[in-house]
């Protein structure tokens, strides 16, 4: 009897993993041979809207100058561009650096210093977005390095009035530092080049990722602005927009360079934060999607649910291994099949960490194929992710209305020489 119950449990786990694997496979196939869909891009002459670029920054003295220099070099009309770095109670030289840049570029950079209120990126955005009047609010992390034409590329999709948010592609610039950065580069490739683009092609739910993208202010106001009590304000915003009928679009062409974590503990903290935030969104919006809103295609609602559930796959997979172990000791037969599925899943069907064939396809499309030889090492990254996600899922803040009470900031590694 117990064996039967556990075997059913393991079958359910295997079924869930297969659903995600099939989903990744459909995305891969679509990206390889499907019709490419992209929003407006490469518009040269237009009546460009007023854009506010928000850069939440908490103790970002190592990287903020690079970000501001890159934005100052952008080809967006200067009279239509407000650069608003948000100094959220930094205790390092971030505030002073911002003031210096504001003095040097008085009409272009308007720093916003936060000294009180709730800490965290979501709260900083909620606060700042009410004070600046841009039609489009673009958001970047402080360590990002946007190219000269990126702002126009990210704003162009908003000429379509149905578009509420735009997301560009994130590309690591410090990929050659060690195994971790190389693995993260592979993950990012799979996640953006294949996963996000396929969701765009298939009219599912491309995710606004909160770092290389933006939101239309009227859409922002329509859904009630940024929620300050989020750990993943990007996922939260994506689903609020989608549920209200706005389009969230992915622009694969708009690449922006980021600094990925170079140390495993930093990476673990990042994954745990994402997990908690994502799970919050699952609790908040999973029910609404399950009711299959009338205005939303069923395929989009299903994909939205699967997207919200991606971080739950980690604990489910872990549970699967525990069930397999228990069944093994209870003498159950025919375990090789489920073990094979659990083994394949160990090469990445968790979270936004793409499956191995998705990563390989992405690197092939990118034209930088030698790095894909690291593919088997994804299992190591996956093991760390699996435990980090499971730890975060076990935390109550992951599921209840947890307010971030502090900045859970990702450590930076850029040296002064690199900035120069």
């Amino acid at each position: 009897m117990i064996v039967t119950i556990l075997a059913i449990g393991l079958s359910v786990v295997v079924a869930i993993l297969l659903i995600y694997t099939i989903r990744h496979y459909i995305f891969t196939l679509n990206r390889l041979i499907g019709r490419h869909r992209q929003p407006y891009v490469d518009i040269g002459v237009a009546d460009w809207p007023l854009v506010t670029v928000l850069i939440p920054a908490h103790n970002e003295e190592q990287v903020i100058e690079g970000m501001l220099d890159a934005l100052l070099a952008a080809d967006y009309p200067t009279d239509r561009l407000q650069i608003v770095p948000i100094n959220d109670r930094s205790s390092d030289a971030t505030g002073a650096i911002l003031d210096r840049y504001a003095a040097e570029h008085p009409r272009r950079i308007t720093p916003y210093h936060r000294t009180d209120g709730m800490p965290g990126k979501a709260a900083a955005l909620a606060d700042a977005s009410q004070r600046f009047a841009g039609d489009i609010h673009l958001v970047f992390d402080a360590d990002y390095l946007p190219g000269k034409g990126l702002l126009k590329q990210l704003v162009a999709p908003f000429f379509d009035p149905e578009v509420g948010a735009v997301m560009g592609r994130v590309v690591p610039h410090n990929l050659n530092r060690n195994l971790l950065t190389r693995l993260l580069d592979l993950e990012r490739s799979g996640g953006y080049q294949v996963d996000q683009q396929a969701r765009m092609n298939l009219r599912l739910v491309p995710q606004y990722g909160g770092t290389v993208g933006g939101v239309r202010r009227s859409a922002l106001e329509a859904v009630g602005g940024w929620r300050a009590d989020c750990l993943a304000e990007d996922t939260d915003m994506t689903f609020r927009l989608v549920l209200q009928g706005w389009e969230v679009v992915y622009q694969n062409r708009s690449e922006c360079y980021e600094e990925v974590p170079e140390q495993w503990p930093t990476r673990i903290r990042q994954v745990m934060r994402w997990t908690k935030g994502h799970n919050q969104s699952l609790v908040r919006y999973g029910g609404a999607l399950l009711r299959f809103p009338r205005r939303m295609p069923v395929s989009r609602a299903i994909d939205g649910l699967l997207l919200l559930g991606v971080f739950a796959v980690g604990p489910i997979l872990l549970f699967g291994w525990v069930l397999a172990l228990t069944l093994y000791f209870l003498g159950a037969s025919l375990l090789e099949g489920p073990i094979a599925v659990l083994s394949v899943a160990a090469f990445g069907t968790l979270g936004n960490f793409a499956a191995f064939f998705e990563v390989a396809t992405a690197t092939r499309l990118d034209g930088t194929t030698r790095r894909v030889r690291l593919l088997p090492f994804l299992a190591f990254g996956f093991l760390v992710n699996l435990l980090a996600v499971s730890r975060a899922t076990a935390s109550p803040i992951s599921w209840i209305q947890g307010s971030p009470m502090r900045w859970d900031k990702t450590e930076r590694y850029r040296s002064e020489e690199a900035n120069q």
Partner: protein
Amino acid sequence: MSLPNVTDLRRRGSRGGIISAHRSMVGLQVRRRRVLSAVLLALIGSAGAVVALQPIGRLWQAIYTIALPRLGLDPTIATRMLRFPGLSFGIDIPFPTLTAHWPTNTEMIVVSLVSIVLVGLTLVLPSRVLPLAYFVRALVVIQVAALGYFTFATPPFPYELPRYAAGFLSAGAIFLTSVPTVLGLTYYLVDVSLWRKVFLTVLLFGHLIVLFPLQTLVHVWTIHSASLLLQPVLFLVFGLLVDVLVLVAFYGWGMSWPAARPRERRP
């Protein structure tokens, strides 16, 4: 004189060179011939693998016949019939018939101590090898579960060693036959030349054909020598997971090979 292809002209620069598409927009040109070759390669590969299992079984038997006496082990080999649904014939899978003993108290204590030492080592490892530390801890967790089982359970163990070996090799045989299908899902579709696809498939087959019996031999020898206590960790971590790792490694290598014709990428 034939007219130049309009699609090709569209990608020509003013000096006649090809303007390559940005990586964000490239995809693969769907050519009927390639899709057909992918399907055929997968079908022929899988069918060929099923047909080849009989001689592969004989090869595995030869490996055991040579290796078992050299390891000082009982060379007796049995066979188990593996049947595929829809096929009238079965395949004999040879396996060693060595048995393993229930763990003794001394073995339990030694494995417990080794587990404690391993966990201790993971605590002093530098953070840059954290995945290795996690991997070792995962091994220890499974080993501790096995220690708990053998402390409270009574013989016989549900998986006797010959049954375990036969089961693993049968799974290996099924795995071998599924390799072309797995490769067919994406690898056979990409713009790598046909001979390279065949080459990778043969190479992967060759590797797995040798790996499965040697892997089983290592498992059997270890469990026979060190008791059933190590069987769970070998089954769960060093069993099919290793073979999937090999498949992924070869797949990654194959995906890194250059395109047959760079111009085939569609903008």
